[in-house]
C-alpha cells in the first residue's frame, strides 16, 4: 500500500480519536475530520451521532464529496438545544487551532492583541464551553512553529495548565484527547500534562516534527508510527466517503 496518501493516514488517525465514543454527538471542523468521523461511524463506532451542519441529526451522512443522497433524519437540534447538548457533555468535538501551546491551550479567536488584532479569526465561538464540558480534540492541517507556539495570543479553548488552576471540581469534564496534525498524533499522556508526540505519520521523522514545533514536545523513547489504513478503510474513504479526494487538497502528501 505504497500509494496511501498522507491525508488518508490523517483520516484514520482522526477515526482512531473517536474510538470508544459510543452514543455521542461527534462534531468536526475541517474536511479530514469530517471524513475520519464518518469512517469511524462506518466501521468501529456505529453509534456515533452526526448533524447535517444545520440542525438535523442525520443517520446517513456518509459522504462528503460523493453523490447527494436523501438524508435519513433521526433528530432535531436547533441552536436553542445545542448548548444543552454541549454542556450536558454527550459530545466529542474536533476543532481547529490557529495556535496551540504545550498544554493544549487553543486559539482560533484572533491573532495579535485582542483589542486590535492583526487578524480577526473565528472568535470565541463555543470553545470556552466545549473545553470545560466534554472531550475535545484538535485538527491542524499545517503543522508549523506558527501554529504550535510557546504562548497563544488569545486563549479560546482551555488547556491542561489552566484547567489545573481551575481545580478538580470545575475541570472534571475537561479532556483534551488528541491533537492530530499532518505530521503526527499528539496527546497529553505525561505526568504534567504536556503535549507528547504519540505517533509519527509514515515518512515523517522526529526531527521534522521538532523543527516545526515552537515549544519542547515530550518525546519518550522510540515513537511509534501512526497506523496505516486497512484495505477496507481505504476503499471506504476513496469510494464511499470522499470519492473526489477533498482530503488530499487539505493535506498534501
Amino acid at each position, binding site marked *: 500500500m505504497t500509494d496511501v496518501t498522507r491525508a488518508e493516514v490523517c483520516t484514520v488517525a482522526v477515526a482512531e480519536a473517536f474510538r470508544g465514543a459510543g452514543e455521542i454527538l461527534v462534531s468536526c471542523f475541517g474536511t479530514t475530520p469530517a471524513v475520519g468521523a464518518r469512517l469511524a461511524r462506518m466501521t468501529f463506532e456505529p453509534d456515533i451521532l452526526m448533524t447535517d451542519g*444545520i*440542525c*438535523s441529526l442525520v443517520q446517513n451522512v456518509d459522504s462528503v464529496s460523493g453523490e447527494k443522497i436523501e438524508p435519513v433524519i433521526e433528530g*432535531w437540534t*436547533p*441552536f*436553542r438545544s*445545542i*448548548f444543552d447538548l*454541549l*454542556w450536558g457533555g454527550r459530545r466529542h468535538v474536533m476543532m481547529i487551532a490557529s495556535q496551540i501551546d504545550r498544554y493544549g491551550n487553543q486559539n482560533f*479567536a*484572533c491573532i495579535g492583541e*485582542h*483589542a*486590535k*488584532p*492583526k*487578524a*480577526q*479569526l*473565528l*472568535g*470565541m*465561538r*463555543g*470553545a*470556552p*464551553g466545549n*473545553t*470545560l*464540558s466534554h472531550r475535545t480534540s484538535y485538527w491542524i492541517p499545517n503543522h508549523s512553529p506558527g501554529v504550535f507556539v510557546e504562548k497563544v495570543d*488569545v*486563549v*479560546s*479553548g*482551555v488547556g491542561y495548565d*489552566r*484547567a489545573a*488552576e*481551575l*481545580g478538580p*471540581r*470545575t*475541570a472534571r469534564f475537561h479532556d483534551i484527547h488528541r491533537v492530530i496534525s499532518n505530521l503526527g498524533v499528539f496527546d497529553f499522556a505525561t505526568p504534567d500534562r504536556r503535549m507528547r508526540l504519540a505517533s509519527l505519520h509514515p515518512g515523517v521523522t522526529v526531527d521534522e516534527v521538532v523543527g516545526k514545533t515552537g515549544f519542547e514536545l515530550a518525546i519518550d523513547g522510540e515513537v511509534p508510527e501512526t497506523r496505516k489504513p486497512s484495505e477496507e478503510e481505504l476503499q471506504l474513504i476513496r469510494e464511499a466517503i470522499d470519492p473526489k479526494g477533498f482530503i488530499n487538497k487539505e493535506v498534501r502528501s
Partner: protein
Amino acid sequence: MDKRTTEAEAVSELRDGMTIGFGGWGSRRKPMSIVREILRSPVRDLTVVSYGGPDVGLLCKYGKVKRLLYGFVSLDSIPLEPHFRRARQEGAIPEVRELDEGMLQWGLYAAAIRLPFLPTRAGLGTDVMQINPELRLVKSPYEDGEELVAMPAIELDVAFVHQNRADVHGNGQYLGPDFYFDDLYCMAAKKRFMSCEKIIDTQDFLSEGSIHTLRINRTMVDGVIEAPGGAHFTECPGDYGRDEKFQSEYAATAKDEEAWESFRAGYLDVSEADYQAKVAAR
C-alpha cells in the same frame, strides 16, 4: 390589538447609546430591512447584541457600534463577516465584548426570565474573562462549592426579529428548520419589533406550518412590520434561500472602497422599496 407599524416608526424609537438585539443567526433570517433603516438614521453609539451576520458588519461599517456583544460574526458560506473583520483589525469597535456563544444565550435567557445572572462554566480559564472585565464569579451555595461564571442578564432596550408569517396582533411563525434565539431576544427587551414576509389572518397559521412553528406569541411583540424580502440577502427558508451572489458582492466591498461606495449608493442610500425593486431587477 392591531400592532402594524413600519421600519421607520420602529427605528424612530431608537436613541443614541441604546442596547439593541437582532434575532436570526449569522446570515440566516436577519431583520435586514430594519438594519437598513437604522443605517439611514442618525442614531449612534449603540450596544449591539447578536449571533452576528451582516447586521453587525453593516452597523460596524457605518460606525454605529460603540459596544458589541457576540460569540462570532459570520456570513455562513463566507466564514468571517468581512466588514466586521476589518472593523476589528482597525480597532474601530470601541468596546468589544466577545463571549462564548452559549454565554450569549444564557445572558438573554437571564434577562428574559428577569434573573440578574445565570451560572455557567463557559468562559472560565479562557481570555473571555479578560475581554469582559465586567464578568464576576459566583460560588455554589451547596456542598460542592463550585465557582462559576455569573453570566449577567443582557437586558435590551429594543429587539428586532424577522419571521416568515405574523398576524397583526404580534403572533409570529417561522417556516424554516430553526427558530434560533428570536423568542429570547423579544423576551429580553423592553420594546420588541417583528418584521415578517407576510401578514396573515390568525386562523391561517396552521395551514402554513405545524403548531411547533408558532414560537413567538403576542405578549412578546409591540410592533409588526410587513416586509416582503425583509431578510434579504440573508436566507429566509420557507420563503427564499440566501442570495449568495448578492452576498459575495457585498463581501467584496470590504476590500474595495470604490465598490463599497457604489454598493452603498445603489442599495443602502435608497428606500426599502427601491432596494427590493433593484434586487428584483438583478
